[in-house]
């Protein structure tokens, strides 16, 4: 192991971290909006909304992300005249937007199932209690259903975010120079695959460690009822005697 080389590699690969994070967070954020929409469509019990959402989830969960990226980037590239006519080519011309689109569509499919699970796990008696208090419609959703669903879905959603951070490595196949892209380039210059990939793996590990801590903090913040209540001051007890 050549530690001086690994330090240089680490510094080089850190240059890809902004793009890796940019791709992950843009696609997770956009994907979450789409996923919420899909989950509501699936739970609407209206067939014309439910079926397209089911079909969408089936297609994007059932095909590899690598294939999706290839199809969106190289596949749609073959239809340039059509896309130009529709004014979409400026978007599809850029590898960055193709990567964001593929990652967003992919994560939305997984996340919509996670959100649906969360929404369905809201205990019925809580909803009934809210109704009894006179809440209904959007107020019921905003005050009762959504907060409980988010809390239930968060652990699974956290893994989805981590999966997305790792999935950005696939963007390197469409010329995006994020951490893995830079690693591949460095290997081709130095032919030292083992050291470079160890460092690249380490960088992903650090990123995901930070993300898991953040998610844990949010979980803690959302679950006050699971925390141990603060200890009762002994002086008060003494006063009763």
């Amino acid at each position: 192991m050549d530690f001086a080389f690994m330090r240089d590699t680490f510094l080089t690969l850190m240059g890809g971290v902004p793009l890796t994070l940019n791709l992950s967070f843009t696609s997770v954020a956009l994907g979450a909006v789409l996923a919420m929409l899909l989950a509501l469509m699936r739970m609407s019990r209206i067939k014309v909304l439910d079926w397209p959402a089911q079909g969408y989830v089936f297609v994007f969960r059932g095909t590899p992300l690598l294939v999706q990226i290839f199809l969106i980037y190289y596949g749609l590239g073959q239809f340039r005249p059509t896309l130009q006519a529709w004014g979409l080519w400026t978007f599809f011309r850029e590898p960055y937007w193709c990567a964001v689109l593929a990652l967003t569509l992919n994560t939305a499919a997984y996340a919509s199932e996670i959100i649906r699970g969360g929404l369905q796990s809201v205990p019925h008696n809580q909803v009934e209690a809210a109704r009894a208090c006179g809440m209904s419609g959007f107020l019921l959703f905003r005050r009762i259903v959504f907060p409980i669903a988010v809390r239930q879905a968060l652990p699974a959603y956290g893994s989805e975010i981590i999966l997305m951070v790792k999935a950005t490595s696939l963007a390197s196949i469409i010329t995006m120079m994020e951490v893995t892209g830079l690693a591949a380039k460095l290997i081709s210059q130095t032919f030292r695959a083992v050291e470079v990939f160890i460092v690249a793996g380490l960088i992903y590990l650090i990123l995901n460690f930070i993300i898991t801590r953040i998610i844990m903090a949010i979980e803690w913040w959302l679950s006050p009822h699971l925390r141990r209540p603060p200890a009762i001051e002994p002086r008060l007890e003494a006063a009763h005697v």
Partner: protein
Amino acid sequence: MTFFKTLGFGLLASVLAVGGASAQEKTVKIATEGAYAPWNFTGAGGKLEGFEIDLANDLCARMKVKCEIVAQDWDGIIPALQAKKYDAIMAGMNITDKRLETINFSVPYAATPHGFGVMKDSPLAKLAGTGTTVNLDKDPEGAKKAIEAWKPLLKGKTVGVQTSTVNAQFVETYLKDTVTIREYKTTEQHDLDLSAGRLDAIFAGQAALKATQEKPEFKDMVIAGTGMRGGLLGRGVAVGMRKDDADLKKSFDEAIQAAIKDGTIKTLSEKWFKIDATPQA
């Protein structure tokens, strides 16, 4: 059965010739990329084909060894050789000083110039020097002038190259401040992006560019600008081997020299490249 008998005798002979270094039959495992037509590519039906596949079979017959040809992605092709996944590389790989630090090469078995591929209706089709070739070693002044002559047209354009190739190195060294460089895993991918209009030009070996032109969807692609050879573009395409494999290098060298001498390389390169790519001494 005669085939197997001949093969058997051949192997026996080779084992005896090596001096009984190993009693086993000698198999040389050769890696190629399988995505760099016409050097090596995966044909219909998934079989490896191309100039280097034909040449490898010819060289192995001369070396009297059994050859196994495997496909390996380009960006990992040298690390996997180091890791002894195979014994030799025949993948359109040029001899360069950088690669010589890590691996060893046989004598070159082919040499073709490198250049730009652009679409016919692109302004870059008028790049200076189309049809001529300049050697970076023998005529550094002329090469410099040719590159300077490109710059006004190339300014601000996007050029695609295959990652970790001499082509990538060339563009990065001479045109880094003039063009945006995009790196691709295979040449097939940058071809697609050229035809999609994401790239203004690609820089690749001219033999590979000619093969791309043969495809119907690339009939509007032209080779533009001065052809480049020598310098960091390397001293010709050769078999890559581990540094400690001196015996293998010796037998490859002899086989290649024999194949150059009897015109096999000329015949094969004319078959696959439509030009004679025999390396000049």
